[in-house]
């Protein structure tokens, strides 16, 4: 019975995946991508796609790229690496797209980048930050995001300055969260702090009660999560339910999104996190993009949308510099590029890894997320310590 179900599901999903593609005209420059429109990364994937679509509209309004219209071809990878890999194979061999944009999440990018590498096809990769992606000697994956390993550095440094010592670390068992975790471990070691709890959890986990009970016994000063949106929300809610207390709560991805505040309400207050980008940053075109995005989609763009938009700009600049969509010329242009767009600086090393963009830390204050580190980009002063659940 079970195998029948699984077979049916497979049939269904492979059918669904094919339905979202947009038709493109022959003379257009076709940019291909897969994003998560369903599954765990749906929210973030959709934001990235919308940001990118906004660039497509704008570049066409400016007269297109190399005098040709830009068309977008995208599929839903369902937040699954194996589906992503299949879709990139299809984009390259079946759809014969001219340019490639990476998917959302390090996880899916790991798989998709292998396909791009096989075809020697340069891919501008927004939405991926685990450094292992760039440790395989590939020549075709160009990252936009600050590395996952650096995500928690500023928050850890701040904790150190407050004399905090004990860290509890929980993270999901996929590429990006593991990258965050390994960054935390090495930074903690360098700062002389101690990781007193270290546990990996499954991609579908939403119940952390047992973990929290164990963490409580360790009495950590800081709780750090290598997480995405659903798990960070669930963790904070359950931390409150179980009266888990620490001086700093910090999570990857979740707190960088408006949904974090929407789903948690007042309980989001004081939670720290990371962002790759905020509309308040003083970058060329950032405010215009943010205003336009808000008018179109009804909410402020998060960094995932900013990344999608920035990826478009990087692609545009590289193609203009290359003077064609020839893969080798575009690759060369991407390696040589050093420029600043609405998403921030783009400059990669010889593996394609992003080295030009700094990291930012955010905190939820009075129902809004504010940049708190680095101080020169901050929109609010960090509030410390995290307010005890019992006193809220």
């Amino acid at each position, binding site marked *: 019975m079970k195998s029948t179900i699984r077979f049916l599901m497979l049939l269904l999903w492979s059918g669904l995946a094919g339905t979202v593609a947009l038709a493109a005209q022959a003379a257009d420059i076709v940019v291909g991508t897969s994003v998560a429109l369903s599954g765990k990364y749906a929210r973030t994937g959709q934001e990235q796609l919308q940001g990118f679509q906004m660039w497509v509209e704008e570049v066409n309004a400016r007269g297109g790229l190399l005098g040709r219209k830009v068309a977008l071809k995208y599929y839903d990878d369902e937040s699954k690496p194996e589906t992503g890999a299949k879709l990139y194979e299809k984009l390259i061999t079946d759809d014969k797209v001219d340019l490639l944009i990476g998917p959302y999440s390090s996880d899916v990018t790991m798989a998709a980048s292998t396909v791009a590498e096989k075809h020697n096809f340069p891919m501008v990769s927004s939405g991926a930050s685990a450094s292992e992606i760039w440790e395989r000697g590939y020549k075709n994956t160009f990252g936009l995001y600050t590395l996952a390993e650096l995500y928690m550095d500023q928050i850890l440094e701040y904790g150190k300055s407050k004399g905090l010592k004990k860290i509890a670390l929980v993270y999901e068992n996929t590429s990006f969260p593991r990258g965050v975790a390994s960054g935390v471990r090495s930074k903690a070691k360098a700062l002389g702090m101690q990781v007193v709890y270290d546990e990996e959890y499954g991609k579908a986990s939403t119940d952390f*009660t047992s973990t929290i009970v164990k963490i409580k016994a360790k009495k950590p000063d800081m709780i750090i999560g290598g997480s995405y949106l659903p798990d960070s929300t669930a963790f904070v*809610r359950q931390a409150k339910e179980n009266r888990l207390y620490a001086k700093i709560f910090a999570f990857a991805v979740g707190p960088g999104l408006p949904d974090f505040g929407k789903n948690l309400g007042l309980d989001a207050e004081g939670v720290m996190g990371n962002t790759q980008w905020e509309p308040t940053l003083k970058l060329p075109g950032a405010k215009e993009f943010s205003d336009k995005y808000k008018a179109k989609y009804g909410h402020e763009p998060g960094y995932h949308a900013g990344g999608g938009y920035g990826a478009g700009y990087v692609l545009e600049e590289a193609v203009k510099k290359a003077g064609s969509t020839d893969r080798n010329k575009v690759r060369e242009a991407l390696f040589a590029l050093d420029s600043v767009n609405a998403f921030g600086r783009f400059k990669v090393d010889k593996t394609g890894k992003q080295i030009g963009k700094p990291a930012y830390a955010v905190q939820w204050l009075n129902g809004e997320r504010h940049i708190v580190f680095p101080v020169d980009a901050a929109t609010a002063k960090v509030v410390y310590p995290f307010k005890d659940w019992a006193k809220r």
Partner: protein
Amino acid sequence: MEEILDPIILGQLLIGGLLAGALYALLASGLNLVFGVMRVINIAHAEFMLVGAFGAYVLYTAFGLHPLLALFIVVPAVFGFGWFVQHALVERVVGQPMLTSLLATYGLSIVLLNIGVLIFTSDFKGVPALTGSLVFGEFVLPKPRAVAALVSIVFAVGVYLFLERTRLGKAVRAVSEHPHVATICGIDTKRIRMLTFGLAGAMAGAAGTMLSMIYSFAPESGADFIQKCFAIIVIGGMGNFAGALYGGILLGVVEAFVGGFLSTQWAEATAYLLLVLVLLIRPTGLKGAALAR
């Protein structure tokens, strides 16, 4: 590792397990009720739960209605929906080969899931009502989970008493035991089946309403729950209402302790490990011989 043997931690794990188990029990017993009465495995059962969860979400966001009050609207609504689904769809496949009803309810689950995605998108939702906890000395009792467990127990016991003590409940059991003889005795079996499906839907809807305060959920969240539910009813005994209650609570507690002693990753595999174990030792499940007749 040694601090895990601390009685406070063990006690807290037990509390967490019992609370989670009560919700599992409510969800799985509805599934088992339907299977017991009409030998139909309702794959869309978790989608009925999500209908309840999104119902609570809409009532909360649009009208600020607390999920506990929303129960009074959501539960009858999902009951009616279940009644209708039985009338319009499932009734046609009762008594057909197992695969027919599997396909029909699987189709229903796909339809419901996609309607959910169309209306609510794939984003994860949550209802930030009734957060926090009650503190008893060293122990904490998470409010939403405690209330959910209470509601689960009230519903499960209520339905159990209905089945055991009332004339109508007796008719449901009669249809479950022998539909043909039940018909001869003058029981309107079709009506009983609609009632059963409605009841199962109502239980799923209640579970969903409670769940909206505890977990993040999206239209696609059903898969994780339905798989656990299958495991629970096999563990408890297919078709046995009380078996699903035991199975659910057992799974909740074992999951909590596995999560405590090993990790949450192991906890997620618990349902299936337990399933294999029970099938090896007692192939008909803890409470039953439903299929052995």
